């Protein structure tokens, strides 16, 4: 019996640790990336970590007989998290689209005037913006020559409306 308790507890601890790792990774991504969509992706990573923790807690506490009514609590919480994540994804992406239309860029630093007044402005350091040569690819064109004769029959053919 003690082995079972220990195993369940250890499993739950491992899930908590994985949830914490996912949360920390999402936090790092959210704080450091500048692309609005990638920032939102990191928020979703954080939500996944929390879902893992909730499911682990819910199952572990549902194993005790006196808390038998809480067997599903963790999972139902995660169902609502998925629902709310869908809602916020819809609205956030609509907002990002509008911001992109107004600014032409997905950069969050473009909107830094929305910060508090006493913050120093963030300016980009000089970074070379050349595309690395190995990713450039030029299409292969046929060599130039005299223009071919126009095909009058094909030009005068009108498709039926």
């Amino acid at each position, binding site marked *: 019996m003690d082995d079972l308790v220990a195993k369940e507890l250890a499993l739950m601890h491992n899930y908590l640790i994985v949830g914490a*790792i996912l949360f920390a990774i999402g936090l790092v991504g959210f704080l*450091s990336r500048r692309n609005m969509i990638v920032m939102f992706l990191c928020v979703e990573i954080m939500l*996944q970590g929390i879902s893992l923790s909730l*499911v682990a807690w819910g199952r572990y506490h549902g194993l005790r007989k006196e808390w038998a009514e809480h067997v599903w609590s963790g999972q139902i919480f995660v169902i609502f998290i998925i629902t709310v994540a869908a809602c916020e994804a*819809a*609205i956030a992406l609509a907002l990002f*689209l509008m911001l992109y239309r107004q600014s032409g860029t997905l950069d969050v630093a473009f909107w830094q005037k929305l910060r508090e007044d006493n913050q120093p402005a963030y300016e980009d350091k000089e970074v070379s913006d050349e595309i690395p040569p190995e990713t450039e690819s030029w299409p292969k064109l046929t060599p130039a020559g005299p223009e071919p004769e126009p095909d009058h029959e094909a030009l005068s053919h009108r498709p039926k409306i």
Partner: protein
Amino acid sequence: MTSFVGISTIFLLGLGLWLMLPRGKTDRFYSKLLGALFGCISLVLFAWGNGHRHQIENYSVLRATEHGHIHGLVEPKTTDNYGHSHTVYLDQEDKRNGVTEYVGTVHLGWDPGFVFYLMAAIAVISAAAAITFRNPVYCAIWFGMSLLATAGLFLIQDAQFLAVATVVVYAGAILVTFLFVLMLAQPGGHALYDRVSWEALLSAFTGAAILGALSANLFLGHESRVDYFSQQSTQDEKFVPPKNKVLDEHHMARLGGELFSRHLIAVEVAGTLLMVALVGAIAIVAQGRQSGAGGKQEDQTHG
């Protein structure tokens, strides 16, 4: 976990994350690999420091008396295989029974299934890749991989509906919406804001520190956890031995019953929230288009 291992884990993890993030000019061609190496080393340290707590062998504890329970632990300090000393306590029942010393081994450890470690590794590595790649489309696809691994983790915890819902709703709807918007904006990852991340050093170490803070409770307080074991085991009718319920055919019925009986109001509110979000998203886009093109239409009608 000793404090040295804990601090070096956090330091290595922060360093590894900082190396992997896109940093523009200071990026080298070996940054990602080195960062991944540091991250893996730190996670191995993390697991090692965390795992050995559970497997204390050659530990002088008796599986006591006729019930086969662990009643408590002996007062003198003992050491485990790793040279760490643990204080152990007798409880009242042992003292009443006249038990003064324990001999034997405690199998506090468990054998985690290979599936759990595989899924957890995929989830963590995919999430780390999702935050470090420059091309946002690659980030989204790595996040999809992380979602699949999370669905596997849900399955291990007997949450079948959540596993399928994660794949269908999260990976199948939300992620695809992400990709639609990315298609409209079409960033190729060559823009400046994709290649440079701001405050990479601070954010990496903040994340590592938060990870340490979240899991510190699992490292410290060793004795109290073992006491929780002994209290659990002396009242064993309250602990239901877990059965493997992954293939339970009544899972959906019970989950649905619980959802629509105990959480009915929350379900209805969630439905209303979904509708409000849908209308709101459409309103945002319509308003944006109206302010851009509405001017032209007004000129045409009036002019």
